[in-house]
């Protein structure tokens, strides 16, 4: 008697559960689809708007005065690459070092202060970092420079790289480190060669995200590297960069420049995309590459 009532009830509740499951699944799938729409539409829009302006000259020529054709952004592309290089030389070792300090050494007062500061620094608007470097580097040098821009971007990278490195390394089980120590390896070698190198892909992903973020930064560059319409003459000279050049062209009244700004935007997007792919490929473990 009871069992038949129970089984009836179970059948009914099972049908309902199945329906709820399907409805919720559909809802979540839809939400995920909607979430990637902005990405796809931005990319699609930039692509369609920029294609007419893309030609070889865009990659090889310097910007031209209004009215002259065949202008390009070669110097800005190079400038952005140089800025990223300088920023990474500062932000990556420094950030990874802070991340190591936070994850590999016993927690103490210093580490909580460092962690809190890193979180604060992440939320400081990038324009403030630019102002900071303006007073610290630009004013003493009496000149906008590639170096100043790179330093500003590098500082923006530090907390992001540090926190992502820390979070990743904290997920490495303790017994992996112990296995290294038990082989008679000094702690620093275990940390660098086993823990860090063993997770270089994941750490690199964090680094790439940080690089991707700074390569589109415009505000801190406005008063650090500024801009320049010619080839770079030195690390202590003002530097052109894609974001600043896009900004300059986009707010101009000229249709021709707008076209160039779109092309610049596409290159900036592709640049980040490409860096991501290359790094993933280089760092893929030997066994799984093939």
């Amino acid at each position, binding site marked *: 008697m009871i069992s038949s009532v129970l089984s009836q009830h179970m059948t009914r509740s099972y049908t309902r559960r199945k329906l709820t499951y399907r409805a919720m699944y559909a809802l979540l799938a839809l939400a995920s689809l909607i979430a990637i729409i902005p990405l796809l539409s931005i990319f699609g829009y930039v692509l369609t708007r920029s294609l007419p302006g893309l030609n070889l000259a865009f990659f090889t020529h310097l910007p031209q005065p209004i009215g002259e054709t065949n202008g390009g952004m070669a110097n800005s592309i190079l400038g952005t690459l140089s800025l990223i290089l300088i920023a990474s030389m500062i932000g990556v070792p420094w950030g990874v070092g802070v991340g190591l300090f936070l994850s590999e050494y016993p927690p103490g007062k210093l580490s909580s202060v460092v962690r809190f500061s890193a979180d604060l620094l992440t939320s400081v608007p990038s324009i403030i970092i630019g102002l900071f470097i303006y007073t610290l580097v630009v004013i003493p040098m009496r000149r906008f420079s590639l170096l100043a821009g790179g330093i500003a971007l590098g500082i923006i990278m530090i907390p992001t790289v540090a926190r992502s490195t820390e979070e990743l390394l904290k997920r490495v*089980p303790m017994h992996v480190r112990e*296995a*290294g120590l*038990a*082989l*008679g*390896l000094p702690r620093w070698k275990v940390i660098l060669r086993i823990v860090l190198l*063993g997770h270089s892909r994941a750490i690199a992903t964090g680094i790439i995200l940080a690089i991707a973020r700074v390569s589109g930064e415009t505000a801190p560059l406005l008063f650090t590297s500024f801009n320049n319409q010619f080839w770079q003459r030195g690390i202590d000279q003002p530097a052109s960069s894609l974001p600043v050049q896009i900004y300059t062209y986009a707010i101009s009244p000229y249709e021709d420049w707008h076209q160039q700004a779109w092309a610049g935007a596409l290159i900036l997007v592709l640049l980040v995309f490409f860096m991501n792919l290359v790094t993933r490929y280089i760092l893929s*473990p030997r*066994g799984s590459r093939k």
Partner: protein
Amino acid sequence: MNPNSILEVKDLHAWFGSIEVVKGISMVALEHTVTAMIGPSGCGKSTFIRCLNRLHEESPGARATGQVLLENRDIYEKKVDPVSIRRRVGMVFQKPNPFPSMSIFDNVVAGLRLAGVRRSSTLKEIVEHSLQAAALWDEVKDKLHALGTSLSGGQQQRLCIARALAVEPKVLLMDEPTSALDPISTGKIEELLTELRKKVTVIIVTHNMQQAARISDQTAFFLSGELIEFGETSQVFTAPKKEQTERYITGRFG
């Protein structure tokens, strides 16, 4: 003192913070023997063997006192570098822990390569030798460059044994090396132990009493951080001197 003694522990105490988990242990392990450590969970046997390669002190708040004579030299002497001790006293852990993103080959030679051994002919030789000693060679010789983590659990554990053997330790500590493995893999590792003892002295923690009875020469029974009984395995299992030992091995404990 016995001329064959390779490891002699005298009054070893170990703490986590203010909690004493190992309370004055003294015992001797002879060369080329297998010593089993049995006892209920939390009785301090893992901590005890972690003191034998000075790994215990790497945990935050952990410390140890007493003497551990490895080939007649106290490894707790002030001048002794713990790193040099761990080179001579290897360890295999409960969970198989091959190094991430390293191939089978790289895993085995990690200890040597990171210590500066570079000659590839030497490394190749050691890889074959160690994998054979760990009874894994035949299964992996054609895929030495596959990731260590791509192997099955039992194979990973034998890889970890090969990795520990590659640096040619005198003593091999094993902390419940088969508790995460199925019976077939467990059998392989037990078989392996009888071979291994020809090269190294083994000290193994186990929760499996049949295992202890099968593979060991001496057995130590731990309870609440104290060594209750220590003797020939056959004696401990057939004619234990202490009542607590008897109750534990007959399963009437707690």
